[in-house]
């Protein structure tokens, strides 16, 4: 019984409203990632689930029970913090057992749990050390261990990997995914790192200004972003956006890029049938634009400005009809066009996204 249900949640700090009428249903065993830039309310939401901040309105249900006003310890949660938050004056073992001792658990049960968790996380060699004598990665393992010994139903992670260097972050990311697969518990994970979100989540909640912009599986978020914000936030380099005008013409849908070519988007999977046109934005990811157009049905002109090689991939930065654009392709193409060269890029109607220019909503 570990589903989490957030109902009409309001959180205000004085006159500032951080979360307003937020709803979120999380099923048992899910790995939900709350993704957004700083100040979007994702950590606030996590703290509200943990019971670490006061809720101004709405309900937090855990396992079907109303836990809105319950103490953190009574919510069946374990939590991992960005700053590790290990108790500095005690050893790793002391850190792991702190909560269990406070809950007056029998000593042999504490020892059994510490043994199991420290084996799982490979922190056995450091049990007698103090946190100050550990590296960042070891500290975060201990912090994860401290959450795990609680044998909670739900684990909360507040940017747990943000303080680690890139290599360690990638390692621990994989370990976290493995951990989730092993124990199968509900996990809620806050991050601003889209790679973590894409790799770990069963579903991602992209947040902005205290509102969940889209809640969907990583592939859906990536391939079918619900609005311009999500489209621009997820993906690196970001999705190309071309402003233009969409119109329906003799049974065809046509998108005319401002001061640029017209593109037949009839084969685009519209959310609702196109009735009348209007100002719109066409979005296409850099890797969905092909330098070698082949037999792809749609074409775009492109003027090269800068070329960047990133090892496996290369990116060309330039303009299409005066609007900024980028193309990503495998470095094996050995392509290094000089500044100012003109080329034609090919793409498929299935790869593109269309948004209403005013509301930003996907069409």
């Amino acid at each position: 019984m570990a589903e989490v249900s957030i109902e009409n949640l309001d959180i205000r700090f004085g006159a500032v409203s951080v979360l307003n009428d937020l709803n979120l249903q999380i099923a048992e065993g899910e790995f939900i990632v709350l993704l957004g830039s700083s100040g979007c309310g994702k950590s606030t939401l996590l703290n509200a689930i943990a019971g670490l901040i006061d809720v101004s309105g709405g309900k937090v249900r855990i396992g079907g029970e109303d836990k809105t006003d319950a103490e953190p310890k009574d919510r069946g949660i374990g939590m991992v913090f960005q700053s590790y938050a290990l108790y500095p004056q005690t050893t790793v073992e002391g850190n792991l057992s702190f909560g269990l001792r406070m809950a007056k658990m029998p000593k042999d049960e504490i020892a059994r749990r510490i043994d199991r968790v420290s084996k799982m996380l490979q922190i056995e060699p450091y049990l007698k050390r103090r946190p100050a004598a550990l590296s960042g990665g070891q500290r975060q393992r201990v912090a994860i261990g401290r959450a795990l010994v609680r044998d909670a139903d739900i684990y909360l992670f507040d940017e747990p990997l943000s303080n680690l260097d890139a290599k360690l972050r990638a390692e621990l990311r994989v370990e976290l995914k493995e951990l989730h697969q092993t124990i199968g518990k509900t996990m809620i994970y806050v991050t601003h790192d889209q790679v973590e979100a894409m790799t770990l989540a069963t579903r991602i909640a992209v947040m902005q200004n205290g509102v969940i912009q889209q809640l969907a599986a990583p592939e859906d978020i990536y391939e079918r972003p619900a609005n311009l914000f999500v489209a621009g936030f997820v993906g690196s380099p970001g999705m190309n956006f071309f402003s233009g005008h969409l119109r329906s013409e003799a049974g065809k849908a046509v998108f005319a890029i401002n001061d640029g070519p017209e593109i037949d988007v009839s084969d685009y999977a519209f959310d609702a049938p196109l009735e009348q046109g209007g100002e719109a934005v066409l979005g296409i990811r850099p890797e969905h634009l092909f330098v070698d157009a082949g037999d792809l049905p749609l074409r775009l002109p492109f003027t090269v400005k800068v070329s960047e090689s990133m090892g496996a991939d290369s990116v060309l930065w330039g303009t299409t009809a005066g609007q900024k654009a980028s193309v990503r392709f495998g470095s094996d193409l050995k392509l290094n066009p000089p500044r100012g060269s003109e080329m034609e890029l090919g793409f498929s109607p299935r790869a593109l996204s269309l948004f209403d220019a005013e509301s930003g909503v996907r069409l």
Partner: protein
Amino acid sequence: MRMSSEKTLARTGVYAFLVISAAFFLMPFYVMVVTSLKTMDEIRVTSIFALPDTPTLQAWVTAWQSACTGLNCNGLSVGFFNSVMIMVPATVFSILLGAVTGYALSFWRPKGTGLIFGILLVAAFIPYQVFIYPLVRMLSQVGLYNSLAGIVAIHVIFGMPIMVLLFRNYYAGLPRDLFSAARVDGGGFWVIFIRLILPLSPPILIVAVILQSTHIWNDFLFGLVFAGSDNQPMTVLLNNIVNSTQGEKAYNVNMAATILTAAVPLIIYLASGRWFVRGIAAGAVKG
């Protein structure tokens, strides 16, 4: 070469200034020490800067045991023990109260935290002489006037603003996640305070002990007004010895008595210089 000779010159200047300043401030202390070691006869005929011909500790013994304060001639020793009796509980209680309040304001943030903190801040700037008359009335109403408990209570109350400020600012510098982690782990108000926060507090506890013990030891006014004749602290007795108007002024006894009274804070300062400076800085850095 030129650079380094200029540097040497600057160094010399700095040291000369420091030595002169130190000498200037040490001069009165030197006079006190040499005078306390002289007999009255010698004091009358020699310069105050002259070293004693035949150093004697008689003045020190008199100051400690038999100098007269009004009608009693028991010396300062009574006051010393009175001061200890006042200082120890007042220091302990004011620090504990300040630490708990600072912890609550910093981490639990009950409603009105800002207001409470604001009031404490403002209170720290009100001259405390203003409160004396109402406090005398209040303490006598509850039967604490002229008692040890009364003077201790006064010191605890007046220590609150600075103690709360000190601890709140120190705790504001501890990571909040630590507190959150302890709450998730099941700690309540006191458990977190005793098992997590107090073990992290020694640096600020040392500073608080230094501040409060020297402050309470040096207090004259509260001791005079609230302690009652049985509990008069050393400072009050010192004043009575030095300012007694009958007979000739026993400068050697006065000097010895003054040094004896100042010895406790002086030793605390000297022994804890590094911590003391840190404490002054601690109050200033984080708001």
